[in-house]
């Protein structure tokens, strides 16, 4: 089964991916045969007209938010006065408390469930 990518010649924009291609393509459409079906961890790059690795998701640790963001200055002041051992205890407890909410998307608020 041969996989083919169709893209717009002028812009490199991907139009279709599949194994069945029309006999007559619209004007300005380029067909490129792929070695295999594109994988989930790949995405189309219109500049190179090829599939490239999809960037890994970048997550932000809310424990870092607590230590660096201005709205948590009071927490930071207290935290910095702790001994190294006590800081570890606080970090571990917060990590347990936050659970899966510990990591957020870059575009997401540092507040776990902000009011609308």
């Amino acid at each position, binding site marked *: 089964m041969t996989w083919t990518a169709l893209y717009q010649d002028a812009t490199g924009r*991907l*139009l279709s*991916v*599949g194994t*069945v291609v029309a006999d007559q393509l*619209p004007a300005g459409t380029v067909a490129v045969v792929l070695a295999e079906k594109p994988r989930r961890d790949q995405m*189309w790059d219109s500049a190179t007209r090829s599939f490239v690795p999809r*960037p890994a998701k970048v997550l932000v640790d809310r424990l870092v938010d607590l230590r660096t963001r201005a709205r948590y200055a009071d927490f930071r002041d207290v935290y910095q006065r702790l001994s190294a051992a006590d800081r570890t205890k606080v970090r571990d407890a917060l990590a347990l408390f936050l659970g899966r909410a510990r990591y957020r998307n870059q575009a997401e608020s540092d507040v776990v469930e902000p009011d609308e």
Partner: protein
Amino acid sequence: MSRLWQPKGIRTPAGVYLPPVAGGDDFSLISGQRFDTEGKDAANSRGVVVGAGASPNVKATTFTELIASTAFDADGIIIGLNSINEDTAWLVDIGIGAAGSEQVLIPDLHHFCRTTPIAYFPFPISVPAGSRISARAQADTNSRFQRITATMLAGGFLPSSPLSRVTAYGADSSDSGGEQIDPGVVGNTKGAYSELSAATDNEIRSLVLAIGGQGNTIRVTGFWLVDIAVGAGGAEQPVIIDLPLTSEFISDNVEPYSIGPIPISIPAGSRLSAAAQCNITDPTDRTFDLVAYGVD
């Protein structure tokens, strides 16, 4: 002006008079509507527990019975999938037939749950009275369990259905997912068509769609519009246009989990594909999985 005569109330066999329902309309006594969630665990107010195969992304070797014998001729069935485990991708077969001789009635129902909601999949297919209904599943992680319900429907809203077969297009057994749909880097602009099937096995007279979140457990809020198309690459014609989806950063699910059944006519041998647009362009959060179920 003449008016259509309507009964003012009914008298039960015991002679008790029941007045008409407030608003003036009576329930029809001839529609034959019947609904029964026969596949359930009533003692615990939930579905029947069905385990995934022993290995990741491998179907269980045996079916688990949901209903020993359906009580009436059904015109439709609604399957409810409720994963006990979070962050799990599923493909579930619904079987019909005696133990050890099950035939797959509905193949590869896809469900990814970031949390543990219930996904409902309605299918307008006929199921004869006396049928044994069962399920088997695979998950992307071993030791996973689903609670599954089967609601049988007859008459009324769904008149006698000539449809009886369900075919899945786009299911990916290697990861218990579906076909990845990528709206691309340009926001709010339809992305490329992804092929669900090079040539549909059977005619399609109704379409049900399953939407999956691809194991992405930290999503931003997003909105999509999805097209389903027919035709060869470069000549796709959208036949279902702009179905809305959404993801929300708290639940991290892409919803709704299922859409349909959508009445539609697509000949056997057609190339089926899907495309979407999204308001976000994050390379991992903009994508989702889709499986289409053709009913004929």
